[in-house]
């Protein structure tokens, strides 16, 4: 950390791990002897709204946990840009997940992309996104890598159920840490939610799935008496997978639609 105080704002979808990232970075910085302040921004909902964290790391006393201008802004989901735009000024460095946030959506003078979601899903799992980002940000904030990893281990110990999972997360952490952040243009954001109803059909049936409403809860999948539903590759509202239909097994019994909490699926027989 070159300057005396770093004011960092992190924003992403609820469930992506924004608060976990903030907790790990702040705890590491506190252990390193910095003055640290970390506060989540929160509303009433448990899920469904962007998750935002204010993190201040300083060599001197910190009086107030929030600020008007961020030195560093970390954006993990395009939907979250709206909530943090007001904290981005010309001097702000913006780090964004270039696999979920399109380059043009980020209005900032200094912006660096890292395809975090893509790297995480390809190398381990979507959930390890937070570990990857901690890696990248720890290097940016000059926090010692080994100490940061130890903090990850203690914070996420319950999730590291086996030594193998722990080791693979370690690799993801190092991947993030060693990623070279470059200013400039990037490839298209590919891990983006679908928009508009998706119509598929077969075997005399038609399925309409609304990715804008699907939260990937999985209830339709387990309630289907015929095992005709499974998670596909397309992403829904919370940037997590939405179901697809195996029409050979489906009987259009309407169970999925009856149980869906979000009115996101309907399958009917096509009357010829």
């Amino acid at each position, binding site marked *: 950390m070159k300057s005396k105080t770093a004011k960092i704002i992190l924003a992403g979808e609820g469930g992506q791990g924004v608060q976990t990232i903030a*907790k790990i970075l*702040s*705890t590491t910085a*506190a*252990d390193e*002897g*910095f*003055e*640290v*302040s*970390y*506060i*989540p921004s*929160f*509303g*009433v909902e448990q899920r469904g709204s962007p998750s935002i964290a204010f993190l201040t790391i300083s060599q001197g006393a*910190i*009086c*107030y*946990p*929030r*600020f*008007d*201008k961020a030195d560093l802004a970390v954006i993990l989901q395009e939907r979250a840009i709206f909530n943090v735009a007001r904290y981005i000024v010309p001097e702000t460095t913006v780090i964004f997940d270039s696999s979920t946030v399109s380059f043009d959506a980020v209005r900032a003078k200094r912006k660096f992309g890292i395809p975090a979601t893509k790297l995480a899903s390809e190398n381990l799992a979507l959930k390890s996104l937070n570990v990857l980002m901690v890696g990248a940000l720890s290097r940016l904030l000059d926090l010692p890598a080994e100490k940061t990893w130890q903090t990850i281990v203690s914070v996420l110990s319950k999730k590291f159920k086996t030594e193998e999972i722990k080791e693979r997360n370690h690799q993801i952490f190092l991947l993030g840490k060693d990623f070279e952040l470059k200013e400039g243009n990037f490839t298209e954001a590919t891990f983006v939610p679908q928009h508009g109803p998706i119509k598929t059909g077969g075997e005399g049936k038609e399925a309409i799935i609304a990715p804008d409403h699907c939260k990937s809860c999985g209830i339709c999948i387990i309630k289907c008496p015929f095992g005709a539903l499974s998670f596909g590759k397309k992403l829904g509202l919370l940037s997590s997978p939405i179901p697809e239909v195996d029409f050979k097994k489906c009987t259009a019994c309407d169970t999925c639609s009856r149980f869906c909490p979000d009115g996101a699926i309907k399958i009917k027989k096509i009357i010829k």
Partner: protein
Amino acid sequence: MPDKKIFITGNEAAVLGAIDAGAEVMFGYPITPATEILQGWVAKAEENKKLQYLQTEDEIAAGFGVLGVLLGGKKAFTASAGPGHILLQDPLSMAENLRLPFVGIMMQRGGPSTGTVNFSQQEVNLAAFGGNGDGLRIVYSASSVGELYELVIQAFNTAWQYRWPTIVLGDGYLGKTRSTVLLKKPRQLIPAYPILEEKTEPTHLRNCYSSEESFGEVLKKNIADWHKDKPAIVRSESLQTEEAETLIVAHGLVASAAKEAITGLNAKKNKIGLFRPITLNPLDSDALKKAAQKVKKIFIIESALNQLARIIKYELAGSEIEFIEIAKPAEGFTPEEIITRIKQNG
């Protein structure tokens, strides 16, 4: 061995304060942003069988449960916010009448009604004057995570020494902020004792009186005690007020933002000082008057309409000072914003 800095939230600091103060029982009900105090206490009670708790059916039961424990001679407290703080006025009133050492930690949130769960300074009136009496309750306002810890311990000491219901005001931001702190452990603890004394000569406690005169006697005695105890209880902080011609008055977390703002306003050169009440009730009026001696203008900054302003203006009634109220109910002030607002008003 020197104390180590730890990295904890305001709500965690509140729990540590209660434990280090010698509290043994907590009553509570889930309400954002104070819920973590109940959860934290429950977690500690799992390890330490001396600590007890009850998650009650509502805040009214929680507050009266606290009173029950006090009557039995143990230190007890509750923590709440917003609508829960409103319900606690019922037991607080009984505590005010009977001079019971009730301790409550209130993490202010936006109001009125359900409002927001986040932050405000709108529960000052409630804490100080919310019952159906004249507001003989001690109210502390914490401006940092470390101070929240200290004031919780102070609250137990004050309550048990002077027998006034005591509230520590924090807010949602403070409760949820994780901050590096060096906790100042208490030097002295005032012990608890049974208020229903179980002696041969029984204790009869009543809060209901038939005649105005007999009740008037009780109130007169309580008010006399209030004035007598005031000098030992009041606390405040004055920053660069010796030569100040402009004074900023703020409390709690807003005062912390103001502290940072003062450096940006070139305070010494521009003769700007900061007066921070730590007790809002009773207010440290002597210190306020001293800080305001040469002052021409006072900025009262609060995240409420005028709850602090009324208290301050009452104490300085009759002065020639110009008061400017900078009010942002239910929203916080960053240091940058305070600087901007003060500059805008000359």
